[in-house]
């Protein structure tokens, strides 16, 4: 399995898509962080505002979700799935290897995005005597960003492998995240903490007050997200086993 994951990592870093999405992520986060530091007066006195600023890197999760969808469905778009399955005929192993590899790629982008955020924000916050959380809190927020980016990328791969069409997968994801997920959360309060936005908030240091509903503990949120990914990956493998390539 290690060899297959290594091959998928190689696959990921030998196309421009990964680097373009990573660069877009860094650019977007840098823009938001600099604008917030320049314009948001609340940062001078409100620790929650500072925590929120440091959580900006969690935006990388959304872009890594797109990366995963592009990578998973891209195998079918370019026909590389045939080459993949000739080397790894076991569909579950093939989907698992790609999910893990792209999740590692997503986590790497999340780590770099967090480091960028910290490198820009912390000295700036120090210069304006902002109420910066203690080091363990800052590291916790960063770890959440990294984990969320990785898990988001993995979910994208599993869904892309299941749907097999890049555009359809991305449209479905955006519709689900921005329309369906919030609508169900509003209608069924118990669902809210299991929703993608609830899990995202729990992993990226959000508070129940800000989110408007109880959040799962950090570890439980990550486990639920990973379980969603596993279910989608198994469904993709099962469907690919029964479908012609």
């Amino acid at each position, binding site marked *: 399995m290690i*060899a*297959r994951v*290594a*091959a*998928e990592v*190689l*696959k990921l870093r*030998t*196309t*421009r*898509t990964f680097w373009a999405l990573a660069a877009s992520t860094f650019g977007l986060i840098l823009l938001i962080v600099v604008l917030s530091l320049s314009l948001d007066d609340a940062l001078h006195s409100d620790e929650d505002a500072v925590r929120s600023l440091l959580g900006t890197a969690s935006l990388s999760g959304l872009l890594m979700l797109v990366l995963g969808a592009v990578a998973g469905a*891209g195998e079918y778009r*370019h*026909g*590389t799935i*045939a*080459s*993949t*399955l*000739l*080397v*790894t*005929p*076991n569909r579950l192993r093939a989907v698992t*290897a790609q999910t893990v590899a792209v999740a590692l790629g997503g986590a790497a982008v999340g780590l770099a995005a967090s480091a960028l955020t910290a490198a820009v924000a912390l000295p700036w916050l120090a210069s304006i005597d902002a109420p910066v959380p203690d080091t363990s809190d800052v590291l916790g927020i960063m770890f959440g960003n990294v984990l969320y980016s990785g898990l988001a990328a993995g979910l994208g791969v599993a869904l892309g492998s299941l749907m097999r069409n890049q555009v359809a997968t991305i449209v479905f994801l955006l519709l689900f995240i921005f329309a369906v997920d919030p609508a169900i959360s509003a209608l069924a309060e118990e669902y809210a903490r299991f929703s993608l936005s609830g899990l995202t908030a729990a992993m990226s240091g959000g508070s129940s007050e800000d989110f408007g509903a109880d959040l799962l503990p950090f570890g439980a949120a990550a486990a639920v997200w990973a379980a969603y990914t596993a279910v989608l990956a198994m469904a993709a493998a099962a469907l690919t086993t*029964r*479908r*012609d*390539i």
Partner: protein
Amino acid sequence: MLEVRDLTKRFGANVAVDGLSFKATPGRVLGFLGPNGAGKTTTLRMLLGLTLPTAGIATVEEHPYRELEDPIGTVGAVLEGPQFHPGRTGRNHLRVIATASGRPRSRVEEVLRLVELDGAGDKRVKTYSLGMRQRLSLAGALLGDPRGLVLDEPANGLDPQGIRWLRDFLRAQAAGGRTVLVSSHVLAEMAQTVDEVVVISHGKLVAQGSLDELTHGVEAPIWVRSPDAERLRVALAARESVDAKPPETGGGWLEVRGTTLEEVGTIAAENGIPVFELYRPRQSLEAVFLELTGGTEAGR
């Protein structure tokens, strides 16, 4: 060994492959022929576990492809259709396969040299010509140094030099004991490359045998010319199952069916009949193919 037994594939109401059975054995090149839409690609994809059979079984060394322990060390494949990411370089495409299958990177360089793509390995696949993509595909098939090769139209896009290279390469692979199954519509090229042929039409087997058997076919008549043609006709017709008759053009010729060249010569000698010419015209593979498949798309 590559084998399909009673293989059937239906796409809705359309039967793409219909109860097909054949074997490809080590040390031989088996040509897989059929008109466009006859079911060749579907059959090869079922052999490689990419398409599911509706009925029957396809095996590689007695196992379904999906159950092979070391798939690319067992059989290498060249498939029709897109299979490369256009933005990835040829060398990186092969490195992905090598990494996934536990082959060293040095093997990538070996196969790139073997298919003469080492100079273009760092170019993105989208800049490759069709012939270069075929060579890259072949490099991928060879990467695991497999005991068998399944090649779907490997000559597509190759220039005459490349086709000649491919022919020599396939012959060398078979001579080295490998099992080679190759589909192609370039019949003249196949005639120079293969040992045996399987011909399908409408997904059904219509002929199978060695190239000699097929092109000499027992149905092809023997032609014999003698100054005493009528006496020879009577002598031949006296043998059971032998049919001998003069053609409308005459000229001392007889068209003989149901016997062998040796027997015609022996009968003539036994009866003291001089023979000036005696031969069985060899049919071209193309003529045999067109006769067997009806000579049109999908054998219609």
